[in-house]
């Protein structure tokens, strides 16, 4: 079928109202940029879930990074987005303005060069991310071990997707289907979502990020939703891969083994949502020397009581329903996590109104 045929189908859909959630920050950004929400039927609602790793890091994590950045002979290195996320009192950027030692890097590997150059200085990498990003930190760890570098620590806020998707389904988020994260699936394989689609009877469509791939993925999701009962009766899977150019069923097994080598699952706090069992990844005890104290950073303070990021992240309300959105909460003065990162749902709604 031609792309236009899929678009027409989505445009003319007149069945029951359906809500599809994407749980990947890059999808949030790609959907906003494609303008697809204004092309498809108003009966198809697209909502953004907790797909931005920076957005879902609790304030306790940011506070810990700031405390480390204020320690003598210590520098915190991290990606740009993390600099802006509010902690209890300050963001890393604001702390930097007050003399905390914070450096923005483009790749974790930049830290290797810094650590070699200044062996008496400690570098703490603020390692956030989902399944996609974790393998990058294993490469950093490999390199640290190979080069016997002992002055780098990781403060991790690493998370995995399936437990939070299960949590959403268990906690009253009304989602009829998930646009499964394309990048995560490259590492984990589409099988990652199979058990969830079986357990909750909800379709999952793995798809890419171009407008074409988005149309295809959303069309696939809608068709699966419409044929849900038949598919189930036939014993067919409700997880489909619409991104076969890069995603396989099994995923990247080498990367998976590396992650398994260094990290183990544990409970993690998601900003605004609380603790979710087995949704975090932590350095295994044998690598504890490289951990800057990542476990138990559970505190999660709202900086503005009226902030409704938690409900936005759960897909229960749209950004527009938040009383702060676009008024006191803007990308330049984010009151909540969803407005911080360029992958945050409120940030994208704000930019692409």
């Amino acid at each position: 079928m031609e792309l236009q045929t899929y678009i027409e189908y989505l445009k003319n859909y007149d069945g029951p109202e359906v809500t599809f959630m994407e749980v990947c920050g890059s999808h949030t950004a790609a959907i906003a940029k494609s303008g697809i929400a204004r092309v498809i039927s108003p009966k198809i609602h697209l909502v953004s879930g907790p797909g931005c790793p920076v957005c879902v890091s609790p304030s306790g994590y940011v506070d810990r990074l700031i405390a480390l950045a204020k320690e003598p002979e210590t520098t915190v290195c991290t990606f740009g987005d993390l600099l802006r996320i509010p902690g209890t009192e300050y963001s890393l950027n604001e702390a930097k303005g007050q003399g905390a030692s914070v450096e923005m890097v483009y790749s974790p590997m930049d830290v290797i060069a810094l650590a070699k150059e200044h062996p008496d200085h400690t570098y703490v990498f603020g390692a956030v991310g989902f399944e996609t990003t974790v393998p990058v930190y294993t490469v950093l760890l490999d390199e640290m071990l190979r080069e016997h570098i002992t002055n780098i620590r990781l403060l991790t806020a690493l998370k995995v997707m399936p437990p939070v998707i299960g949590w959403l389904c268990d906690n009253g988020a009304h989602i009829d289907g998930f646009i499964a994260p394309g990048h995560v699936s490259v590492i984990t394989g589409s099988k990652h979502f199979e058990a969830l689609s079986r357990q909750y009877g909800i379709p999952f469509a793995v798809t890419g990020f171009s407008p074409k791939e988005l149309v295809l993925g959303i069309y696939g999701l809608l068709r699966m939703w419409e044929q849900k009962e038949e598919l189930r009766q036939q014993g067919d899977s409700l997880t489909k891969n619409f991104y076969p150019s890069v995603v396989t069923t099994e995923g990247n097994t080498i990367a998976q083994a590396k992650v398994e080598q260094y990290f183990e699952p544990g409970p993690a706090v998601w900003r605004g949502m609380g603790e979710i069992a087995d949704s975090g990844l932590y350095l295994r005890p044998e690598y504890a020397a490289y951990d800057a104290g990542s476990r138990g950073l559970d505190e999660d303070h709202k900086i503005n009581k009226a902030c409704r990021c938690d409900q936005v992240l759960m897909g229960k309300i749209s950004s527009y329903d938040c009383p702060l959105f676009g008024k006191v909460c803007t990308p330049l003065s984010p009151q909540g996590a969803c407005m911080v990162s360029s992958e945050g749902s409120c940030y994208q709604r704000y930019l692409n109104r």
Partner: protein
Amino acid sequence: MIITMAHGSGGAATSELIDEIFAKAFDNDVLNEMEDSAVVPGSGRIAVTTDSFVVTPLEYPGGNIGRLAVCGTVNDLLMRGATPKYLTCGYIIQEGTDSELLKRVATAMAETAAEAGVKIVAGDTKVIEGNGGIMINTAGVGFVPDGVDISATKIAPGDVILVSGNLGDHHATILGSRMNITNSIESDNAPLNEMVMALLDNGIDVHCLRDVTRGGLATVLKELSDSSKVTITLEEESLPLNPAVRDFCGLLGLDPLYMGNEGKMIAAVPKDQAEAALALIRKAKYGEAAVLVGEVTEGVDGHGDLLVRTAIGGIRQLDVLQGEGLPRIC
């Protein structure tokens, strides 16, 4: 030679630095007088501008901070329809700078000034503590011909928006250099005299010109739509992009609409002159990839809007760049 604090003392070492590098590179009758200020001829409507350049790295594929410091200021004069005539330059040099690097920067500056038809008539040098960095401030003076009235407030419904070439090249170059990524992308830093003069000399009724620098095309056009209180609608598929820049942005999750250039401009002209204006820009130096990217309609409720019609027929509403795109690209 390595620059030390002594080169900023005002004494013999300073003279050596100026004679050896700047006087040689910028050699002209006004500067050679070495007076406290330059006295130059000129009258009429004068355009004045200033800009500071703090780019890192100092040298990058396609140019260096010296070329950039001329292009930025000359282009700002051109965007008001002025003919650029004179530049001043202030160098703030950190100790530890290699004089060979300084020579390359000054030489590029002199060559670009010659290309843009401007004379560097005054200058200053300071040396500060640091680690081999160079910062340059340039001020520019130009003369606006009678009858030329180009301004951010003049864009009108019925105009079209032309872009003189590919988006994001300079930004991608600087980011690539910092990330040690090897690719074919080069900065587009260039003085735009030829295309601007071609438009003005051939009777195009130019309503607005703006160089597409920091913040990228989206920021520039959103600001202009606000100033002129019009709606600008871009066609996503017509936006000109070097495929290498497109892929680079795709890999890094960057949006070319928010990436800066240093040798591209937009022109707002009446629709019936679009073809003629495009032909003139394409024939001019640095303008071969010029295209029509959008149209201007009445503003809604007295304010400006920037919209993009996407490849799948969606509409995306754009704002100016939020926060920092990438620090220090110019």
